[in-house]
């Protein structure tokens, strides 16, 4: 059985390393701890990719089971969580492919678009613009906006900016190069900003009709 080494460049051992070692030694309660620790994140990632709650629940179960069954293949040169995310992303894409009746789905598709690679709308946003919406309206707006991004941009933004993975971890989880992650992240951020500007820009005061001053 291979021994898990601490993540390169870190002096302190990540707490997951000891848990993974215990699981490998046959302690299922240690895996219970790992599942509790990451089930919320995995559900969120799967739901963002599949955009379907039932699929997300299935993906989460399948990903944790697959990780458990393949734990001996985990080399420990990355974080356990990054490895788990990679499994969940692949399971989610497979699920999407099934739903789209065999159409190939990958994070490489639709990335040639030039939309949003250069900012066009320079209107400033209202201060705390989210306060102009109730929670349900805001959630709907944010969901629709992020769902409108090409898959390859959406997943990079999600892992890097929402889930807080580093650029290197995002690259590893998605099987992409670091420059590819950086390029997609910039375009995802710019496209989201551009689209949200339609909702969040400052409302301009109504323009008085010509001659109104003279009439007043």
């Amino acid at each position, binding site marked *: 059985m291979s021994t898990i080494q601490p993540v390169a460049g870190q002096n302190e051992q990540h707490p997951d390393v000891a848990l993974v070692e215990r699981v490998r030694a*046959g302690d*299922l309660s240690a*895996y*219970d701890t790992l*599942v*509790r620790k990451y*089930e*919320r994140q995995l*559900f*969120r990632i799967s*739901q*963002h990719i599949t955009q379907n*709650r039932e699929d*997300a*629940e299935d993906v*989460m*179960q399948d990903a*944790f*089971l697959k990780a*458990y*069954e393949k734990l001996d293949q985990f080399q420990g040169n990355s974080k356990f969580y990054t490895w788990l995310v990679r499994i969940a992303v692949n399971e989610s894409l497979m699920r999407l492919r099934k739903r789209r009746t065999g159409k190939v789905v990958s994070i490489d598709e639709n990335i040639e678009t030039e939309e949003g690679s*250069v*900012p066009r709308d*320079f*209107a*400033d*946003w209202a201060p705390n*613009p*989210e306060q102009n919406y109730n929670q349900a309206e*805001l*959630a709907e707006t*944010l*969901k629709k906006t*992020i769902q409108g991004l090409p898959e390859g941009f959406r997943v990079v*933004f999600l892992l890097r*900016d*929402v889930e807080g993975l580093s650029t290197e971890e995002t690259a590893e989880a998605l099987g992409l190069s670091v420059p590819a992650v*950086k390029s997609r*992240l*910039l375009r995802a*951020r*710019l496209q*989201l*900003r551009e689209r*949200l*500007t339609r909702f*969040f820009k400052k409302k301009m005061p109504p323009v008085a009709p010509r001659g109104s001053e003279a009439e007043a």
Partner: protein
Amino acid sequence: MTCKEFLAILDDVIDESISPGMRSEIEVHLRKCGHCEVVFNTVRKTIEIYRCHELYEFPAEVSESLHNAIMDRCRAAKGDSQSS
């Protein structure tokens, strides 16, 4: 610094992975360029909004049953591997 140059390093600026020398160059550019200042502030706000609002909450009513289902499947897999 031009707007194009600023855009090329926008992600590094947002992720605060730039040198102090570059930071002052950027500050000079942002003071002069309203468009880049808006882009910078609104990209930062975009990230903050998505980070602060959990769009897909883990459904509390099914979280325990989902968790148990995962562990049951792992237990069964462990049993299979030990009996084979």
